[in-house]
């Protein structure tokens, strides 16, 4: 089976094209570095031939500068046919990579993607003229709306036949970069025409959002709006839809089940949980069918939907790289550069994609620092939902205090890591994409896949976690552990001894762990300290596996050691601070 490799500069629409051709879901966003590893799929070409398609991370050149680009450059050698995806709005820069591919003499098809955007920007490209000059097939496409994709598939089928027939593909002599730019300039002069047009509102907004003063104001306004949006939508869904649905429709069913299981108390304890004041309490009973489903569907899912909707909009509009520019000076103080803002923001959704996104950072040191900061100081959306639910009952300020404390931990820890790991910190070189209007279909698609991923991955872990906790609790298995760790948990962190159970359970699921805090009857300062500790201690098992894969065992051990030290010290600090301010 032939292997077709999609390659091109970052943020030119390779993943969108891959999804169109193979039907496999990929994450599509408006910033360079969305794809950090390759994805493999299959497609049937017109004529019935089945081919393998590989989506690669974006690269500016075959001489790679980071891990993601190295993957892309290596895959070029493995491909039978290279599909070079170009951004039609920036043909000159994209042709540099095309020249490099032509130098290698690989069978090549050129795709002029975002052809509609080019027209809107007043750029006309003669695709046939370009094909004649490069001596390869050139197909204009709009991957997000499928325009030109059918024609591309026919072209790929033709090229596959030419490969079978042993026909040669053009190869150019190796050029120095200067010669390549000269040739590119000449090609452009022949095939591209520019029309004069006025600046649009979005273009003016682009300049404002990287302004040293207005950009900062804009960033604060955007982040405040995102926070307000998540809280309003999340709470609206909970109070307006899901909580009433659970109370009026699901609770009577559970009460019937509970009365039927009275003869089998162990089963009742596992499935329905312990009655609180003689009644089932979805937040505190801790049964698999009560608290398990309630936490997942009526607490975490609404906030998760609101968070990913806001993040998808920011990603697709193209604001995140600009936030990176505005925060670059600050991030340098943590031993990172501005682009690290993107993995950190992704970590607020789930730590796993956040850690994977650190692959776009240039040095191992940066990847270690960013991954450690994400696993320690960034609460995932599940934990955040529980923080909102538990601490939010006492007003907005306890929630804000927990977030501010975690931010302070990140700053202090970042400084310490920077000081302890003196090394080369590369300068920021970042392409900033133009603002684009987000497409409702793409945003809805992303939201659907994030929700589906959460429900499929989290359900067995949540139910399994509650089952395990109930079994161990039923047989009093945690009592000895609680006694051993009492000096730290009670003496240092000011929490009751049995609070160690949720903290240990956090390794399985953070939301379950936070849910387990509810029946403990913690005071507000204790609750806030416990929320901080749940973020600072071990990440959940999925994050831990990814951390191990990305950093290797040595750096993972270092990261875990830092994590334990941070949790011990800052847990005690949180206890002292919250006790005084509340």
């Amino acid at each position: 089976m032939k292997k077709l490799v999609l390659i091109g500069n970052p943020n030119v629409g390779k993943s969108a094209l891959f999804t169109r051709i193979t039907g496999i879901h990929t994450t599509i966003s408006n910033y360079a570095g969305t794809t950090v590893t390759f994805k493999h799929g299959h497609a049937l070409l017109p004529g019935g031939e089945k081919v393998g398609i590989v989506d690669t991370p974006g690269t500016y050149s075959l001489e790679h500068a980071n891990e993601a680009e190295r993957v892309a450059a290596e895959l070029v050698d493995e491909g039978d046919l290279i599909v070079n995806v170009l951004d039609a709005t920036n043909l000159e820069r994209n042709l540099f990579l095309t020249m490099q591919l032509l130098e290698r003499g690989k069978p090549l098809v050129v795709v002029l993607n975002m052809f509609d955007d080019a027209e809107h920007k007043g750029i006309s490209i003669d695709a046939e003229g370009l094909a004649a000059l490069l001596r390869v097939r050139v197909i204009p496409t709009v991957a997000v709306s499928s325009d030109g994709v059918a024609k591309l598939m026919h072209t790929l089928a033709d090229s596959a036949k030419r490969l079978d027939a042993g026909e040669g593909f053009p190869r150019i002599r190796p050029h120095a970069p200067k010669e390549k730019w000269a040739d590119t300039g000449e090609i452009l002069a022949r095939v591209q025409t520019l029309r004069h047009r006025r600046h649009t509102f979005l273009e003016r907004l682009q300049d404002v959002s990287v302004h040293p003063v207005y950009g900062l104001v804009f960033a604060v306004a955007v982040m405040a709006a995102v926070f307000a949006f998540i809280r309003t939508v999340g709470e609206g869904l909970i109070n307006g839809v899901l909580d009433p649905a659970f109370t009026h429709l699901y609770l009577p069913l559970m009460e019937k089940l509970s009365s039927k299981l009275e003869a089998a108390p162990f089963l009742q304890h596992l499935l329905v949980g312990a009655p609180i004041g003689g009644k089932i309490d979805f937040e505190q009973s801790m049964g698999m069918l009560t608290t398990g489903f309630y936490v997942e569907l009526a607490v975490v899912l609404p906030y998760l939907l609101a968070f990913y909707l806001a993040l998808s909009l920011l990603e697709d509009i193209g604001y995140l790289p600009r936030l990176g520019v505005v925060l670059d000076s600050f991030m340098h103080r943590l031993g990172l550069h501005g682009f690290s803002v993107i993995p950190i923001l992704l970590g607020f959704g789930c730590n796993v994609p956040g850690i994977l996104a650190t692959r776009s950072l240039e040095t191992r040191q940066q990847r270690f620092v960013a991954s450690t900061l994400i696993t320690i100081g960034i609460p995932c959306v599940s934990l955040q939902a529980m923080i909102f639910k538990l601490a939010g009952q006492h007003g907005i300020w306890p929630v804000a205090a927990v977030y501010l404390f975690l931010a302070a931990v990140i700053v202090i820890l970042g400084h310490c890591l920077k000081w302890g790991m003196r090394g080369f910190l590369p300068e920021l070189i970042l392409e900033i994409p133009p603002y684009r209007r987000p497409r409702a279909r793409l945003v809805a698609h992303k939201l659907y896949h994030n929700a589906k991923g959460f429900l499929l991955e989290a359900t067995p872990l949540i139910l399994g976690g509650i089952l395990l906790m109930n079994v161990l609790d039923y047989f009093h298995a945690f009592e000895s552990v609680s006694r051993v760790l009492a000096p730290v948990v009670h003496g240092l962190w000011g929490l009751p001894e049995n609070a160690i159970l949720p903290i240990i359970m956090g390794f399985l699921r953070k939301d379950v762990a936070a849910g387990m805090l509810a029946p403990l009857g913690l005071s507000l300062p204790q609750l806030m300290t416990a929320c901080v500790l749940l973020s600072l201690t071990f990440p959940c098992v999925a994050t831990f596996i990814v951390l191990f894969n990305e950093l290797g065992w040595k750096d993972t051990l270092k990261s875990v050691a830092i994590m334990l030290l941070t949790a011990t010290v800052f847990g005690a600090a949180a206890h002292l601070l919250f006790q005084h301010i509340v």
Partner: protein
Amino acid sequence: MTNAAGEIRKRSGRGNGAGCFPAEPQSARRKRPLNTQLATCNTQRFPPPGWHFRKEMLDLPNMKENAENKTEDAADADFTLATCKLRTDYRVAALPPDGATRRRLHCLGLSEGRVVRKISGQFFKGPVVVRVNGTDLALGHAMAGHIRVAPV
């Protein structure tokens, strides 16, 4: 001379003579414009001993070629991307000599002779945003300080 002074003289001697750049009389340095003098000081002091063995630095033919062709531009270039005015067009006169950085900037479309416009410069030596050929690029302040530009 104390030991300490001797050590200082020794370090200074290694930077000027035994490294990759020939020593030059101090009087010649004084006559140059200020920014050229700073650039010379930086290149002589910054690379560690043995720097010329780095792979990136072996890209000599290209560097020479560019240096020869851009001598006139470079002579007129009194600004860097870090110090030039906002919203004014400049032509790139010289890129940093480091091979890997040069290649990266080349790939992003920033090469000698290109017209660039600075869009913004962040406070506290933060990144500089420039527009090249319709694309916005953010460059670290130190790197922008090594890209010399001349007014168009």
